[in-house]
């Protein structure tokens, strides 16, 4: 069943004619050609597909695209503005908080929503907030440090 769904994507309005039951993940990756959002498990248990819906981290493999009607969606492609990396992206670069980079978009967007909820998270709060995002390469320690650095930078 095709449906017309309008929402805002990375600060721009989009209109999609699509079966509203399809997952947001594949609508983003195929219809909207944004490849930064990754597929890792399809079950909501890895976090690679994380995007922001109304500033909240959401697993895009778990929600139908119809759910974002009228909402504000942000993917990793929308984070850097005017050619400037977001402080979280910069901190991931500076801390070398990635290896293969496949989990990275999901990590950064999960951290983004975490920092919106808590401006000065403790290390324990970061660990708790990120615990359901998986990284097989083992960049965990550096990711926690990067989030701390970014939080500091963003408070300034």
């Amino acid at each position, binding site marked *: 069943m095709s449906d017309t769904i309008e929402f805002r994507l990375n600060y721009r309005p989009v209109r999609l004619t699509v079966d509203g039951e399809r997952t947001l993940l594949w609508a983003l990756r195929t219809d909207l050609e944004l490849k930064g959002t990754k597929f890792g498990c399809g*079950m909501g248990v890895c976090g690679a597909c994380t995007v922001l819906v109304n500033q909240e981290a959401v697993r895009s493999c778990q929600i139908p695209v119809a759910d974002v009607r009228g909402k504000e969606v942000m993917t*990793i492609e929308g984070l850097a503005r005017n050619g400037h990396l977001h402080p979280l992206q910069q901190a991931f670069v500076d801390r070398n908080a990635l290896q*293969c980079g496949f989990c990275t978009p999901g990590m950064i967007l999960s951290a983004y929503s975490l920092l919106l909820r808590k401006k000065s998270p403790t290390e324990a709060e970061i660990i708790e907030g990120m615990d359901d995002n998986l990284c*097989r390469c083992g960049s965990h320690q550096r990711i926690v440090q990067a989030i701390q650095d970014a939080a500091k930078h963003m408070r300034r």
Partner: protein
Amino acid sequence: MSDKEFNEPPSATAGALDLNRRQFLKILGGGIIVSFVPVFAGDPPEALSAAQPRLPEDFNAFLRIGEDGRVACFTGKIEMGQGIITSLAQMLAEDLDVPLGSVDMVMGDTDLCPWDAGTYGSMSTKYFGPPLRAAAAEARATLIELAAERLGVPKNRLQTSSGVVFDTDAPAKRVPYGDLTKGRRIEKQLAEKPPLKPITGFTISGKATGRTDAVEKVTGKARFAGDIALPEMLYARILRPPAHGARLTDADTSAAEKVPGAQIVRDGDLIAVLHASPDEAARAVDLIEGTYTSPKTGLNDENIFDHLLGVAPPGAVLAETGDLQAGRGIASKVIEATYRQGYVAHAPMETHTACANLDGDKVTVWASTQGPFPAQREVAAALNMPLQNVRIITPFVGGGFGGKNRNRQVVEAARLAKLTGKPVQVTWTRGEEFFYDAFQPAALVKIASGLNASNRIVFWDYHVYFAGGDKAPTFYDVANKRTTAYGGWQETRRAHPFDTGPWRGPNGNTNTFARESHMDVLAAAAGEDPVAFRLTHLQDKRMLRVLEAAGSAFGWSKAVAPSGKGRGVACVIYKGTHVAAMAEVEVDTTSGRCQVKRVVCAQDMGQVVNPEGAKMQVEGCVMMGLGYALTEMIRFRDGKVLDRNFDTYQLPRFSWAPKIETILIENPDLPPQEGGEPAITCMGAVVANAIFDAIGIRFHELPISPERIGQAVKRS
């Protein structure tokens, strides 16, 4: 990591190589081109020695300095997170004397890059680095010659710096590399090693450098195989059997055919649904009713070890010193134990993925693979095409760990592209990834050993089943020792109920778990501190140095285990790298949960090209190793793989992460050695030993899961 099946082929690639060179030189146009072959200094690892004679004789990689001054390095190796995209560029930039930012790495493209066996075994820096540096030095010498002509200055007055040749007497007299190559085409083949820069003069190599691919990866711009979009591309989902060994007897595709836009393809054993939307393809494939035979092997993750012992090939002695019988005769205490480890999955975050495009009689496949050239051969065979008509392009790979030496998805995409005449993407689901993974083989080790009256080990009789290999013999100083292997880790795949293959640190994880656990068992029997006990059994200077370095960083103080402190130690000599790891754990005896609080790793890996990269690799080893130590093991029953996603197969998480401290021992006299694998092999034993120290219970089987800890506590 390697697998004999993939070390290929003399004649077929020779043809491809000629073509590569022709194509390559055509594409290159002007510039200075230096080609080179990796040199195998020292002992090539076992897998490589089989492959080496087959490597192309004339050259194995190129570097080119273009007219724009940019330097391109073409290599069949691939980047999967291990960081060679940075460390190889660093080595090249150092000896050529150009800024790191002017180097472009062109990796894993079978049309542009010369043949390569595959990216595994942490061998890239060790074997590829020295000739790469030599080629860079050769190119630099050539540039100086050209500059001497151009500037009319004797060679000995010329120096290079940051991509420019200048006159040391009149530094204003200078010419950039790009200008020197303009309008010319100079081909050089590296015959002999020109002198390399002394390590003391390094400004790029050996310095902590961020990843050159980081910005692409944090902005979502980095392209992985599944990110390739081709016009009219279809997404495929393939009907899969419920169990290994199950054969399809019937398939009802009528319901799937009703899904609008779905195209069903059947070609022998391959039944697939193709659709412009991947989720629609998934919905349709679920509607296919396949009928299968259900094989009853009777095998499961509990009885597998008995099965393996039953089918083990006869033993072969891998190493022997002294006289075991004589050693046994003087032992006052004899201690025997068996150690086990189940099947472990690779579980990279990116599943096996490929996009294939057929264009006339040629096919191009973008693939998530560790071996683009083996993949090329597999596709050529499956499609019955000449090798040179198949091009494999390897974008960034989202983790490999040995698992992406298997290229099944590459062949599937190519077959489906041929069958449909459309570009096809195959992205495995997580369930498919677990099902078809070539697991680290389950293996066992039986050790009989003895101490004399002064607590020296007087004999060590080591029997390893299905994990035989170079990591089995002990490096400890024991007068009478023998290592017998019943099946190597790679040539016994048929004994297992599913595919097995190289997994980060092949044959290192089980053997190190067994050896280092048993050293602690002996230390406890001797009433000695585990570190002190090891020190009395070590002569190897590099090993002594890393053990002492780890001890002082960790703050190890002498105590006999179990001391209640919850600390453990484990050591390994992994090819040319020496590691000592120490860990501190806390065990909650009620929940069975083991929290690893701290890990110190001291590593001597010879020269370190990228210290930051080396530390990242050690941290990756520690985190990934915690998985096989504490939770990771594939459960299965009659060919059915029961763990098919991360809900039941538990990967290490943020909340498990210990504080990791890496100490890189300076050893500039030794060329770079392996860095991506050694430390992971220590993780089983260092955790088992720390748990013993904490609660006095010795675990002989990995993983040491909360359930196992809970049960053991109850029994004790």
